[in-house]
């Protein structure tokens, strides 16, 4: 019963933690939106060629209510009564963006990509070299192809073994990594070799 309670509390804790994380991410985004970079809003007016004046694009950091031709187009290339005709042709649009969001997102993405690449290099190149040096040639042979045929009771062993507790943390990590590697190997066999799934 105690284990049930512990499991339940753990789950409740993880739910609350996840919701807290999600809400905080949202709040962070809103805050960064609010403390907007001054340069992240603009009013963009595109004015086509008119009489002798060539076409021009005007940008200005201005609020949405002031986003029209009269406020943005400076210096006005035409005089007097032509201003209205000129401004009728111009198209003004209010745009905003969040450069902080873009920067943070790209940096997060590149760091995750970099970590994955490092791990991939480690798994494919470094680890076999290390293993070969530590354990010699014999042990390498038996690790790979055992898992092919499912014996009837192998799955049961797996299920029951998960319920037992392991003492050492390092052992746990090693055990988890081994299990993950076996899973990926099975997946790779199904997808790439036997072409059974996802062909």
């Amino acid at each position, binding site marked *: 019963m105690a284990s049930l309670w512990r499991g339940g509390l753990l789950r409740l804790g993880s739910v609350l933690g996840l919701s807290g994380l999600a809400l905080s991410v949202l709040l962070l985004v809103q805050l960064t*939106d609010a403390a907007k970079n001054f340069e992240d809003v603009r009013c963009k007016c595109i004015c086509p060629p008119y009489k002798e004046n060539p076409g021009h694009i005007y940008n200005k950091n201005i609020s949405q209510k002031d986003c029209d031709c009269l406020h943005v187009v400076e210096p006005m290339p035409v005089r007097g009564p032509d201003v209205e005709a000129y401004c009728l042709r111009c198209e003004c649009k209010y745009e905003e963006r969040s450069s902080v969001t873009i920067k943070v997102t790209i940096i997060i993405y590149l760091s995750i990509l970099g970590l*994955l690449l490092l791990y991939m290099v480690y798994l494919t190149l470094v680890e076999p070299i290390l293993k070969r040096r530590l354990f010699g040639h014999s042990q390498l042979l038996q690790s790979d192809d055992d898992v092919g045929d499912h014996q009837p009771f192998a799955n049961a062993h797996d299920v029951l073994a998960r319920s037992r507790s392991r003492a050492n943390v390092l052992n746990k990590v090693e055990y988890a990594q081994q299990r993950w590697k076996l899973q990926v190997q099975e997946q790779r066999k199904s997808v790439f070799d036997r072409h059974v799934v996802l062909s």
Partner: protein
Amino acid sequence: MAMWQGAMDNRGFQQGSFSSFQSSSSDEDLMDIPGTAMDFSMRDDVPPLDREMEGNKSYNGGGISSSNRIMDFLEEPIPGVGTYDDFNTIDWVREKSRDRDRHREITNKSKESTWALIHSVSDAFSGWLLMLLIGLFSGSLAGLIDISAHWMTDLKEGICTGGFWFNHEHCCWNSEHVTFEDRDKCPEWNSWSQLIINTDQGAFAYIVNYFMYVLWALLFAFLAVSLVKVFAPYACGSGIPEIKTILSGFIIRGYLGKWTLVIKTITLVLAVSSGLSLGKEGPLVHVACCCGNILCHCFNKYRKNEAKRREVLSAAAAAGVSVAFGAPIGGVLFSLEEVSYYFPLKTLWRSFFAALVAAFTLRSINPFGNSRLVLFYVEFHTPWHLFELVPFIVLGIFGGLWGALFIRTNIAWCRKRKTTQLGKYPVIEVLIVTAITAILAFPNEYTRMSTSELISELFNDCGLLDSSKLCDYENHFNTSKGGELPDRPAGVGVYSAMWQLTLTLILKIVITIFTFGMKIPSGLFIPSMAVGAIAGRLLGVGMEQLAYYHHDWGIFNSWCSQGADCITPGLYAMVGAAACLGGVTRMTVSLVVIMFELTGGLEYIVPLMAAAMTSKWVADALGREGIYDAHIRLNGYPFLEAKEEFAHKTLAMDVMKPRRNDPLLTVLTQDSMTVEDIETIISETTYSGFPVVVSRESQRLVGFVLRRDLIISVENARKKQDGVVSTSIIYFTEHSPPMPPYTPPTLKLRNILDLSPFTVTDLTPMEIVVDIFRKLGLRQCLVTHNGRLLGIITKKDVLKHIAQMANQDPDSILFN
């Protein structure tokens, strides 16, 4: 029937009279005599009171009996019982009844204490909280994917010196030096030739740019396929066929796991950025479903119950489409029409909520600025005319033809990949296709730009201030009215754009066939829409010029006078995109809703519907299945199609196993088998379940037990329970059978027995059997004759039978 007769004759039965046969059980005597229910029950269930008084006589030693008694009392479920093996089908009925039991228990307990009341309230809430979390995570991941993909796509062409994280558009956002003629250039954005050889003009610069473009494309593709191969092989492909199968009750362990999620997100960006002809909508559905599956682990209600989990996955799929297109309602309808198998009303509400939250999250991240959700949001509202229905239907026919052609060629190519040597070199295949795509794409500006940008430009209606080549019309008019421009003759730019677009069309049609299905995440919504949009725009510009130069013809006369804004080529592009997408995926309602959520133009529902219906009819006439069903059939998943009628007159006994020449059905008896017998059966056969009968002679059905549960329980009993050895009797009844003294203690396995297996008689028509399998989600169904167990029909047998009736190869159904 003949088999049964033969068996009876062999054992010397008399027809219709069993009383002469002497058996260890008195069942046969009881069968003919009416009103013997009481006698029958006494055989199996001795009332507990008598048991108590008999006490030590029936058990072997008091100590053991007390331990057995304790086991009965606690009935703690053994971990692993009730779970499923990989690549197996779940039992919908069992999962649903388990959920109802759990709900009932919580409701009953909630009256006891405050804590229990809170528990029951939180249990009811947990579904909505889960939807909220799924929406938040899907929206955030979609925002990450969008922003990263935009940046990396532009990375092939250059880099921003004012902050490397800006793509081309954002780099020039604040620049003062953008001119009217050359709106794309600004000094902050440097192309690779500018960085390497300090100039942007000349043949050498062009070659340098070309080379860098191909190099980056190859690098991205190589990284994508290596990451997929090393970390998560399940992350390749679109994901929608597999999700359809999972939602119909199949289990693919690891397909919706953490590593698959991470790798799919990262490699999707790489694949899209490498310039390949693929989209990200299908993979986004997979990403959203992974989020849903992972978040289910936080809630007990959904973690332990596979049927409830699939409700959540349906809602997650809706959230995925919602963020992919910015179309929440379209997402819900897509989940209903394409992806889900069972879609009760409760799932409708939950999907609605999840899609809403996801769209809201994406909007707050605001990847595109201006609070738009999707890149090709168009804003024109010019009306269409009745005679334009003819070209719209032509576009529909084109869409249907293209859809049928694409499905046929793509499936043929994927089959080649599956069966020949081509499948052994996935990395090389990806690199070669990327190289071909990049080399052919760079010279043509319409293939060089990303497909979403292309679609956005094609959907765009040309205004006076647009500077793209497609909008290079000659302006012969004097005044400019409010916003509407009349039809104008095409300038030189338009003609050259038409040529380039035709080449783009051919390239995209050909290369997408080879791209979809490679071992990287690939979707096909965007490429199909691109093909349709190009075809539509070409037709639209043609119509526009026709109307301008021949405005005195009969059809154009009434609507298209000179100076009127008659034809909108952008609308033709939209209709073409809808037609092609409908031809490939065979979506109807969800397609139209997605398209008009994308454009905001409610005026255009009728043309979109006309094109979608026409393309579906034409495509259905040429080939029965959509692309996802075709891939399901190619992979041999056990997916029972819910939309087709079974129209043959076969009976249940034509399909059931064992067939005429096969050995008899492997059954377990309710209380006369030893542990060793059961272990022998398990190791000698590969059946996933066994019926339990009263005795071999009577073959009267008690229930059904699954192989996995049996294995786990027997293993557990051997380890944990005292005294259980190979000769211990296993019983499935409520009380242990009377045992002589000095026999090893018995093992009760009643808690893993399904006491209500579904049965049909052997003369039931297969139409009804298939309907039962579909509607109830069965895995197996037992066949009886005159009340006795005759055989079994599994879902696999039903699928093979349907395939046989449709003259396909029944051996292509895998996953035995």
